[in-house]
């Protein structure tokens, strides 16, 4: 049961890695470029850890898709940031899904960390986009 949820989380991490790569060309504010680099590194690391967890559980990690569809075509800084808000929000949902499907303390701790850092980055990009409210009351709950 938790293997399927972790595969969903892995898919969200693949999408995040792909999207951070896609948007980097559209973001030129230095502080935001640094945040893009941080986010890309964090999702790559999370992807690798997640693949390792699946292999250790005897499962074959799902490979990434060839491409992912952002909520709107990415052709500007604004649409790039919207795509980042979307992938971080999706990652929150996927990792909360893992939490709800495992009683394993170590996996829960790791999933909480993934949920938390994605919630923080989603908030950072919401702030950059001028979205209100800036914060997310229940990250991963699928609403707000």
């Amino acid at each position, binding site marked *: 049961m938790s293997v399927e949820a972790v595969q969903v989380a892995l898919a969200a991490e693949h999408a995040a890695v792909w999207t951070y790569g896609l948007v980097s060309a559209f973001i030129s504010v230095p502080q935001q470029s640094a945040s893009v680099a941080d986010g890309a590194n964090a999702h790559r690391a999370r992807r690798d850890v997640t693949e390792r967890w699946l292999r250790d559980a005897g499962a074959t990690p799902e490979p990434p898709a060839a491409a992912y569809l952002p909520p709107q075509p990415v052709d500007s800084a604004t649409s790039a940031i919207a795509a980042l808000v979307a992938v971080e929000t999706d990652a929150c949902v996927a990792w909360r899904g893992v939490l709800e499907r495992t009683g394993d303390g170590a996996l*829960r701790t790791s999933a909480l960390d993934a949920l938390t850092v994605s919630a923080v980055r989603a908030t950072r990009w919401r702030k950059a986009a001028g979205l209100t*409210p800036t914060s997310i009351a229940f*990250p991963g709950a699928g609403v707000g």
Partner: protein
Amino acid sequence: MLLATATAPLAVACTTPPPPPPPPDPLAELVKAALSDAALATAVGAPETAAVRTEHAVRLQAEVDRATPRVPGSSAPPTTTASVAPPAGAAREALVPALQAAQKQAGDLVASVESHRVGLVASVAAGCASLVEALS
């Protein structure tokens, strides 16, 4: 006949000693922290934080109430959401440490809490982290 069978268990219930009180619900502590943060946020003029922590308190209290066994014969809910007075001399600088403490408090329960509660508790922890980022 029907009446007799219906009243007999009641009579037993009234004469047996009350069961020991259930152990305190760990989520009740999260409710207290959320209400205290909401009061602090209101006092220092951080309405978004106040709104989110109030929502946290409401959802957590709803789960505490759902899980708390009702004492037979009592109709009132076993717990009520007490209002928390804003602390005197509240400072905005106190808000971020309070939210960080609340994030840790909820996060510490995640490894062990029942699976039907873990999503809510984890979202409260991540929500506190989101509030800290929003305030930065």
